[in-house]
């Protein structure tokens, strides 16, 4: 029973959602189920957030490696949670948006979380360069094609590309790099994308069916 009921739930819910596309009065099931998902996700956070706290308190208690940083994590979590849940310093009262300008919550976000997030994101620039240097090699025919396409797009989307081939007469304008870049985007790139996208669509259908039919059930855990 412990396994049958969940399998049944998956089957019924999955089938209902598929059928709802064809039955207008069921059209809003999708909406309802999505709200349910959002609500479940909040409850799940009690588990996730609790786990985060547990891991770091544990680190602290056992004085594991780098334990002092756990204090910072716990403090950050608690402060931000308090600022958000109690809407500390929010203009107006509890009815205002949690991230209303001027609140402690939005101040911490802007002065701490934003710079961190943006910087972490910007590390990509460095990694792109190191990957370009180390890994993008014309090792074989496939890799060579990848490189050539990348090159033309890179050039074509920058002012260099415009300069390099601006002497090409307009009658053969396709040979100007920016136009070549556009053509690559619109033809071969599009073709590759389509093949991948159609493939993904079929992969999703097949996997979804396996899940709905209960062939794939590892996420339901063991018998105990």
């Amino acid at each position, binding site marked *: 029973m412990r396994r049958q009921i969940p399998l049944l739930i998956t089957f019924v819910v999955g089938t209902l959602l598929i059928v709802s596309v064809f039955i207008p009065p069921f059209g*809003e099931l999708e909406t309802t189920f*999505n709200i349910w998902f959002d609500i479940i996700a909040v409850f799940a956070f009690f588990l996730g957030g609790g786990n985060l706290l547990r891991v770091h308190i544990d680190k602290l208690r056992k004085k594991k490696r780098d334990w002092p940083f756990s204090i910072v994590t716990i403090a950050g979590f608690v402060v931000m949670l308090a600022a958000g849940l109690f809407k500390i310093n929010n203009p107006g009262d509890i009815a205002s*948006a949690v*991230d209303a300008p001027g609140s402690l919550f939005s101040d911490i976000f802007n002065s701490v979380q934003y710079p961190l997030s943006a910087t972490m994101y910007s590390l990509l*620039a460095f990694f792109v360069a190191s990957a370009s240097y180390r890994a993008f090699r014309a*090792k074989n025919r496939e890799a060579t094609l990848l490189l050539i396409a990348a090159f033309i797009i890179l050039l074509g989307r920058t002012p*260099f590309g*415009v300069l390099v081939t601006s002497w090409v007469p307009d009658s053969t304008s396709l040979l100007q790099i*920016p136009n070549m870049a556009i053509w690559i985007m619109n033809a071969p790139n599009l073709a590759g994308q389509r093949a991948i996208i159609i493939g993904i669509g079929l992969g999703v259908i097949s996997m979804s069916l396996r899940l709905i039919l209960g062939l794939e059930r590892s996420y339901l855990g063991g018998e105990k």
Partner: protein
Amino acid sequence: MTTRTKEIIALVAVALFVVIFYIRKVAGRGAIEFPTWLSMLVILLILASLLWILVLTIRGRLIERRVVFLYVGIAVALPLFMSLTQKISVSPEVKQLYDAIVELPEGSKVLLSFDYDPPSAPELQPMAESIIRLCLQRDLKLIIMGLWPQGPQQANLALEKVFDDEDIAAKNLQYGVDYVNLGFQSGNEFVIQRMGGSFQSMFQSDYEGTRYEDIPLVRNVRNFSNVDFSVNFSAGFPGTVEWVQIAVDRFGLDLGAGNTAVQAPQMYVYLNAGQLNGLLGGMSGAAEFEDVADYRAKGTKFMLSQSFAHAVAIAFILIGNVAFFMSGRKSRLKGD
């Protein structure tokens, strides 16, 4: 000298640099701009060091990744001090978006969805600013929303910036009548789905807490059929793909998009299939739009620095490959 000592010296140097320039800033000194000869010299030095890296690599030594990192940092930072101008060519999908906006009759309602957060702002913010500016210049009404929590905040920043312009400020636009920020709504693509039935069901009130039915601009806006055009600024999921799949495919919305450069290639599929009406991709998309809208701003300013960064990336690919061929394809380069 031990590594430790070197690290301490480097740290002290950075600290000194910061202190000196911060004092300089507090003293009220303005921005630094390189004279032309210095700009040229810097460019030459950057080129020369690239050559040096090439030689080292051909000799079979991969330079350390940290050197690559340092190099990238310098190549991106220094051009920000230079002032050279460059030519911009406008791609058709940028022109398409521009045309779609200018062809709208005065008073048309444009839905702007801000589906990104601050990390993507360097790319998307300049686009958002120029599109908002263009719309307001042409007396279009803006309905702003966000599928990402921090989107509406980005929209407010962009609005503030645009209102700094005299010609826009002179219009004396009114919140709630000429533009409105409905705020963020969680639920990803399903927000779009529900908006297809009714906007109000997803946005009971706007960002400032005014009830939907009390906002003159949107009072009569029931769903997508009351919107004339829309632009989605997207940095990932949920974003343009979801807007196309739901709002365009199911509800027939007329949609243009501003995307981060990384996302943009995937959108050509939709552009080509007519599901998208115009597209701005990355910082160059922003610069091109500024060019076609004839208003130079941030996007154009960063272009030089960006061109340098591209040159560096291209150079690194070239160096890697030249070395790869010169040292014989079989002997694999080792290094970290």
